[in-house]
Each structure stands twice: as C-alpha cells, then as structure tokens.
C-alpha cells in the first residue's frame, strides 16, 4: 500500500505542501466510541485544488478540522499531518496557534455564524494581521480594503466599515475568504463554502477561489457534497465513505470512469442535463451510511453495494491503482466497475 501512495505523490508537480498520512479520528460518546475517520491519506500540492466529496457523516469535515487541530480535546487522533514537513498532529497548542490563520486558513459553510456580529468586517480582517503580522491597526485596515477588493467586493473602502448583518450571504462569504487569505496562507481549507448560497452567488465565490489559486498559488482543499462544484473547480478528487477514502483520481478520470461502486452510484444518483422522469430513472443507493464504533476489516459499503459478495465482508479492500497505465487513479474496491460511464449509460438506455 505504501508503494502505491508513493506513486501517487510522485505524479504531483513537486513535493506536497500538505501531507496527510493514515489519519484516524474517533470520538468517545455516551453510547460508545464513534470512529469518524479511518486511515485517510492525502497530498495537497502547491497551487492545487483538491475536492473532497461525500455525504453527511462520511468524515470529510472531521478530516478537514483535524488538519489544524480544530477538533475538541476529546477527539482521539492518530496518524500524521505534515505542513511543509512539519508535523501538526500532537503538536503544542502554541505552535498550532501560529499555524492557524497564517499557514492554514479555513472558511466554513455559514459565514454569518463564523463572523463576529459586533465587529466591522475591517476590524475582523485586521485582527488576523495584527496578530500574525504585527501590523498596526491603521496598516491592518488599509490592507483589509485591499483584501476586500481582491475577493471582488465593490466599493471596498466603504464596505470595510460595515457590520456582517449589513451584507448579503455572498458578500459575507467573500469577507470570510478575505480574512482567510489575509496572511497569504499556503493552504486554504474550504468546508462547504457555497452550500448556503444561491447558484448565481456560488459561481462568483468559486471564481474567487480559482483566482486566489492562480494569483497567489494557494493550495485549496474544498469539501462539498455537490458534484457540480467538484466538476467546476477541483483538479483532483477524493471520495470519502464512512470515514475512509474509497477513490482518488484526477477530476476528469473520476467522472469518466469511476471505479468504486459508491462513486459510480453517487454520479448516477444526481440528475444531470437532459434527464427527465418520463424517460429516465435516477439510480438510488439503498440503505444508510453506517455509524461505526470500530472500523471492521471489511468494505463498509458492502451492505449497500450491488456487486458485493462474501469476500467484501471478509477483508477491507486496499486503496490501490485502479487502472493499468495510470498510477494516479486509486480505488478501494474488490469489484471495481469494469467500464467507463459512457458505456454504462448506453446500456441503461
């Protein structure tokens, strides 16, 4: 399995900015332990946008939070997260505090709950700069105006003195992005950044993220359940299911030929252009995402999988190269889909 990992990393442009290795997270609860993330490995190259996709409860947000140590103290974390070679798992809080906001920044789904309602947006953006860059308040305010312009807020010089409630949802999310990139972080983690927004506004926010990557070379990990967002912005995709990475591939490869049955199921479950109930049926994935107390040595998707057999319930499939010739498309499935999607859809018609 390790050799496979190496092969995937070698295909990237240079050494990754962020290396996640064998990350596992579990939480003790009143009803026993819940295993949220199990053995996730992932690289983020410089200037790369990686999309992480999966349904609620698949562990994508927990993975994201664990990167900069944002999980509650009760969380049990094992494995390794390295930023430019520096280990972050188990590091002292004082070290993490220097990393958060400066090297690794976050934006979340609901900007209204992430912004402080009693501070102007200028003060909130400025705060990051005063803490990490030791800027004066005046210099920080001037920089805040520049940052607001960078993220596409019109008349930034006036908007810098407004309060969050005076802005629309899209504008608030732009403020969050301005705050996140204030110190020029190497890594931006965007957890469902457009889920609460309308499509017209979403298009603008995705454009801002792409711009930041192109202009500042920021590496972005974008977490979403929306395959349209992934198709729009990601260079590579990681599909998660029940705490594990089940498939990892460059974006075009993943959509053209998903190998894992879960990925294939997700793709045919979403309505796509040209499909109508009169002639076509959406593919359902029966059953529910399991909540696991311990990670079994089995494929966790087996109970919902059309191709599962006894072997799938006996041992967990490793994440390994799925395609002859290409080393960057990995899937963890004992019975990967043999043909690309175009052929499958033809058969269904």
């Amino acid at each position, binding site marked *: 399995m390790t050799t496979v990992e190496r092969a995937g990393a070698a295909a990237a442009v240079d050494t990754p900015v962020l290396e996640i290795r064998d990350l596992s997270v579990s939480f003790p609860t009143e009803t026993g332990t819940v295993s949220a993330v199990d053995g996730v490995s992932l690289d983020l190259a410089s200037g790369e946008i990686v999309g992480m996709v999966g*349904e*609620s409860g698949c562990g994508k947000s927990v993975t994201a939070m664990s990167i900069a140590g944002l999980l509650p103290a009760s969380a049990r974390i094992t494995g390794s997260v390295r930023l430019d070679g520096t280990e972050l798992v188990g590091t002292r809080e004082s070290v993490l505090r220097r990393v958060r906001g400066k090297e690794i920044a976050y934006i979340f789904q609901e900007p209204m709950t992430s912004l402080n309602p009693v501070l102007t947006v200028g003060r909130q953006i400025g705060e990051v700069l005063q803490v990490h860059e030791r800027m004066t308040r005046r210099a920080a305010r001037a920089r805040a105006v520049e940052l607001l312009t960078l993220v596409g807020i*019109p008349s930034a010089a006036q908007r810098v003195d407004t309060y969050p409630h005076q802005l*629309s*949802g*899209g*504008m608030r999310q*732009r403020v969050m992005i301005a705050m996140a990139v204030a110190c020029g972080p190497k890594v931006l983690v965007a957890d469902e950044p457009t889920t609460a927004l*309308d*499509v*017209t*506004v*979403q*298009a*603008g926010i*995705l*454009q801002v993220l792409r711009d930041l990557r192109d202009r500042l070379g920021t590496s972005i990990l974008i977490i979403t*359940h*929306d*395959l*349209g*967002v*992934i*198709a*729009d912005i*990601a260079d590579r995709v990681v599909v998660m299911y029940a705490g594990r990475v089940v498939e990892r591939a460059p*974006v*075009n490869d993943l*959509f*053209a030929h998903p190998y894992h049955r879960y990925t294939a*199921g*997700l*793709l045919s*479950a*979403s*309505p*796509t*252009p*040209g*499909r*109508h*109930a009169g002639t*076509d*049926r*959406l*593919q*359902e*994935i*029966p059953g*529910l995402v399991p909540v696991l107390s311990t990670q079994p040595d089995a494929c966790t998707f087996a109970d919902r999988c059309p191709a599962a057999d006894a072997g799938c319930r006996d041992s967990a499939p490793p994440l390994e190269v799925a395609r002859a010739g290409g080393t960057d498309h990995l899937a963890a499935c004992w019975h990967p889909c043999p043909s690309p999607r175009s052929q499958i859809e033809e058969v269904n018609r």
Partner: protein
Amino acid sequence: MMPEPNALEVEDLVMHFGPVRAVDGVSLTIPKGRVTALVGESGSGKSTVGRCVVRLVEPTAGVVRIAGTDVTHLSRRQLRPHRSAVSIVFQDPAASLDPRMLVGEVVAEPLRLSGTRVPRRDREARVATELERVGLRAEVARRYPHELSGGQRQRVSIARALISEPRLLIADEPTSALDVSVQASVLNLLADLQRDIGFACLFITHDLSAVEYLADDIAVMYLGQLVEKGSRERIFARPAHPYTQALLSAAPVADPVRQRQRQLVLLGDDLPSALDPPSGCRFRTRCPLAFDRCATEVPAQVAIGDGMAACHLVRPDGTGPDVRTADTSEVLS
C-alpha cells in the same frame, strides 16, 4: 360536459409583509396533473407564493383558485372543505413533523381534520396503505419521527400530504436538505406518485437539475415577480430572459469536461432589497445587457408559445440576445 378546472390558478397575486413586497403580481396556472416548477434565488418570493396557495398566509391582493374554487379570502371554517384539495411538503422534515406525535398520528392527521368521520380501523388501514405507497413499512406508524432518517422523514411528510388525495401538491424544496443518494430516491418517489396518482404539483426549488428531472413547465421568479414561463424543453433549450440564462449558466453541471467549456455569466452577489425594488425592470441592476429603457419602463410580457418572457430585449417572435454568448457592446449600441 364542463371541462375539468385547472388544479391551480393564481391571478395577480400580491403579498406584502408591511413594507416588504415579497410577491408583487404573480399569475400562474397549473393544469390538472401537470408539474410546474417555480424557481428563483432565496428571497425571490417563491416560497411565499406556495404559502399563499395553501393559505398559510392571506394574500394582500389577487386571486387563488384551487380546482376552480376561489379560496383567496375564505375564513378558516369556510376553507376547511377545500383543505383536502391541496397539500404541502416542506424542506426540512425534522422541523415539519411534530416530534411528540407517532408517525401514524402524523399521517392520519389530515383525515382527522377534514371533519369526515373515519372509523379508527379504516384510518389505520389508510395510514398503512399510504406509508407503503411512499416506500415505508406499515410498522413505521408506531415510531416517532426522530427514530427515522432524513429521507424516511421526508417520505412521512409526503404520505401525510397525499392521504387526503389532493389535486394539487405544493412541494417546497422537498429534497434540498437531503444527501445526493437520498435525494434521488425522493425525486424518483415524487415522479412515480405523480404519474400513478396524477396530482398536479407546484415544485418550488432552486435546484435546476431537479427541475429538469421532474417538471413539465417552469416559471422563473425574480424579486417578487415572474420573469419567464414556458415548457421545460423550451426553457432549457432556449431560455429567453437574461436572468433565466444567467441562472442556467451558473448552475454547475456534474461533468468536468462540459462544465469547464461553459461560458459563465457572473451576476454579482446582491439581490436588491424587496423593500425598495429597482424601477422599471427589477433585474436591471444585475443584468449584463441592461440599457436606459430598463430603468424607466416596466417590460411587458412577450408571449412565447404558451409561456412568456418579460424583457425589453425579447422580440415579438420570442427571440432575443443570450447573455451566455452575447457581445454586450453590440446590444447596447
């Protein structure tokens, strides 16, 4: 013989909440057994239209007719016999199901409220039938909503909506709170039920891919008014209003090769305030093609087939510029 009345007729509907002009003159007809999608951004007033139709709120002005009966200003008592003709399914089933009621009670409640006395045994049998129709086991009747998953709960609210055999179902973002795989099963279910039972449906949503899958007709709403109406085929193939075009271009397609070839129309983030909507055409502040006349003159509705578009740039034959391809300088000159 009298022709069968339309399932829903809304004429010039106005709903103002104090100074907020949430709905400002909406007219819409849904023939028997058709699915009309009402699409628009948050704040466009689409949910308020749905609430006026089921008379959760009493409209400020205009007429709502359900299966031929004017229900606009009926009192609660007068409304009761007509309640069974229309039902509503809301976005978040966790919030719209009473947590203290058993699923069986929830589903049976419309029967109890209709005033016709249904014997208990019959009621239980109908609840069981209804639950099975939405793909749940009859035993679910003895569970509480919190014991069910999100998708199962939404099935319960669909069962509750359909037990009174309505002619019209209002579905207000019924799949927006659900995961992709669950969404698929709820959309399939709605499509199956609609085909088998033949109720008409007002499908309120911002999800354009779900609209294309489920709707026969589409009405596009912007800031309290309809800007375009038409068949699904026409709206997706040849959207006439710049807002419809922008909306379609903004919704990402789950296909990276196609998605990255598409021309993106960026509108800017700010939907103007419904307290003080822009003069003339309400979309002009975000429209890439707006010109002088848009600020002074409210655009008339140009008929396109059975539908319409309200834009100065749409010609009488229904053609006009497309913001996704148009060279804006050419239009302005």
